[in-house]
């Protein structure tokens, strides 16, 4: 799991929340073949950008979920979620996926954000055989997200 320092300052995924998000994304999209896991700063960068554009109420709930998950980690692996083993994290995520409806909603949101941060990146597209836009050079007014998805802004070592 890569938690090296980002180039773009993260606004929402900071401190423990960042650690929880990365630890979860690492299990939601584990490394496979030549593809890295989802638990990298590059994923977190895209997600943080998207969180800035999220409806404030939903964003607050999403960030609160990360805190709750961290605390609940103790019940699944004796330590906070971000410090638990991969197996313990899997157990907790599987419980969330099929647990009480609030937890299922939380898992659904978390999974979607992890996938958004991962499967919108050009390096990943290449690896899964997706050719990307037919007009790849069309400009977008927000150059930050394009750079993040091209992983020009920050590439994990």
């Amino acid at each position, binding site marked *: 799991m890569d938690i090296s320092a980002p180039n773009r300052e993260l606004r929402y995924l900071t401190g423990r929340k960042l650690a929880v998000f990365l630890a979860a994304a690492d299990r939601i999209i584990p490394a496979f073949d030549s593809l890295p896991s989802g638990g990298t700063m590059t994923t977190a960068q895209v997600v943080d950008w998207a969180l800035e554009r*999220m409806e404030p109420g*939903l964003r607050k709930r999403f960030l609160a979920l990360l805190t709750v998950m961290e605390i609940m980690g103790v019940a699944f692996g004796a330590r906070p979620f971000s410090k638990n083993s991969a197996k313990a994290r899997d157990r907790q995520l599987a419980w969330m996926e099929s647990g009480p409806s609030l937890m299922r909603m939380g898992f659904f949101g978390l999974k979607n954000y992890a996938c958004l941060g991962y499967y919108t990146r050009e390096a990943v597209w290449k690896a899964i055989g997706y050719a990307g836009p037919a007009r790849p050079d069309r400009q977008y007014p927000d150059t930050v997200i394009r750079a993040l998805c091209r992983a020009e802004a920050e590439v994990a070592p």
Partner: protein
Amino acid sequence: MTRTMELDAVIIGSGAGGGTVAERLAPLAEAGARIAVLEEGHHFPLAYFTQREVEMMGLFRYGGGWPIKDGSITLAAGRGLGGSTLVYTGVTFRLPDAVCEKWGVPGLTPKDLAPRFERLEKDLSVIVPGDDMVNDNNRLFAEACETLGWEVKKIPLNLSGCEQEGFCNLGCATGAKQGAMAVQLPRAQKAGVVLVPNCRVEKIGRGKVSAKVSEPPPGTVPGPWEPGEVEISAKRIVCAAGSPATPGLLLAAGLEKELPALGRYFTLHPAMTLYGVMPHPIKNYQGFPKTYYTPRFSQTHHFYLETAFYYPFVSTKHLGLWGEDLARIMTRYANFMTVIALNHDPASEKNRIRLSRKGEVIMDYTIAKESVESLAHAQVAATRLFIAAGCREMVMPMAKKPVFTPADAGDKSLEEFISPKRFLPIKTPLSSAHPQGGCRMGAGPEDSVTDPWGKVHGREDLYVADASLFPQSSAVNPYLTVMALADRVGQKLVESADSWG
């Protein structure tokens, strides 16, 4: 400071319904009537459409994932000049005669609708796609249906000069897709109807509309009105904000007491996108995404099976997988065969639009048992189809093993292997792009919100002209029906223009 303004007619929302009414009112605008279309979303020029999922999230309300109250279904709804027609695929179906008759709205007959459909199809350049528009996913779908003995049909599409880039749902980069922004709104504007993007209607009252205009974001076309609050007096108000937004506006106006059906009978066409994995790449992301469907199960199991295509991130939502299953199956993305099952859900009084204490729209909808059964059967059908096409693996969220091979399912009956009993709300991925109802048309205020011409019962100034008029599900993809109903509303408004006062 709040500005005030006097207009003859205000249309709220600029999608399939609002665009069509605006065009219908063009002769009045030409004759000097002051008419404006107020649209909360932005005016996106063609150059804005970059064909990238994350960048195009702003074309949709809630970024494309608007959850219903219990979180079990997420809704895609367009937000911008053109409404959902900005992001729709252009699948063009007429309301089936049998559904029209079942709706039982006085005067709304197949005979009334037929010439409207004909005119709209002409205006929207509707074609039956030729074989040069059939990509591998569609070809395999059609061949597999034939192998299985299922009726398979071409999907009529509204296209003019399509370059088959395949990004319809992220906004058409070439302008080939024919929607409100390509057809009706420019005609209305030419006649003098004013199009106002970035303008959110906050409240409607008797002959009054309160709205807020915001700054246009970078890359979008600025509108004619300065940012700020606006109070508008209008002789006629046409709500075309779509379902569920229009029922929300009417609820906020306090009309529930007089109109007990308001917000109720909300339907969604709950959908499941289903994937099979071919042994070799078929690159469904190239070419036009939807050219075939089978009506085989509509009468018996209440769903349509259509071809489909989704970009990588949205596909991960539909797959309903995580962990190694997800990471592995996504490496076969180029091999995906994709279909979508659309359930004709029953209209229930209990499924309704409400307002939260803060006034936000809530979609209080519980999926019916028969819809879950229908979608389980759709997965059985899709599995048969994928196997007939030559897929090596399938992903079916209600299967005993969500990712499975033909051999895994082979020794048991598929109906046992894929069971509605495995449906778990939120975990089982369901989506919708076809919200309908909440302001149903009908004879009187006891069980409907508007008359058969979209006029709100008991009100002379207030009309509805969007998908919320549907008394029950349209069964088929709805946009053409929305336009035909809006055309009726526009006709009535023009005919009654002398009495606007």
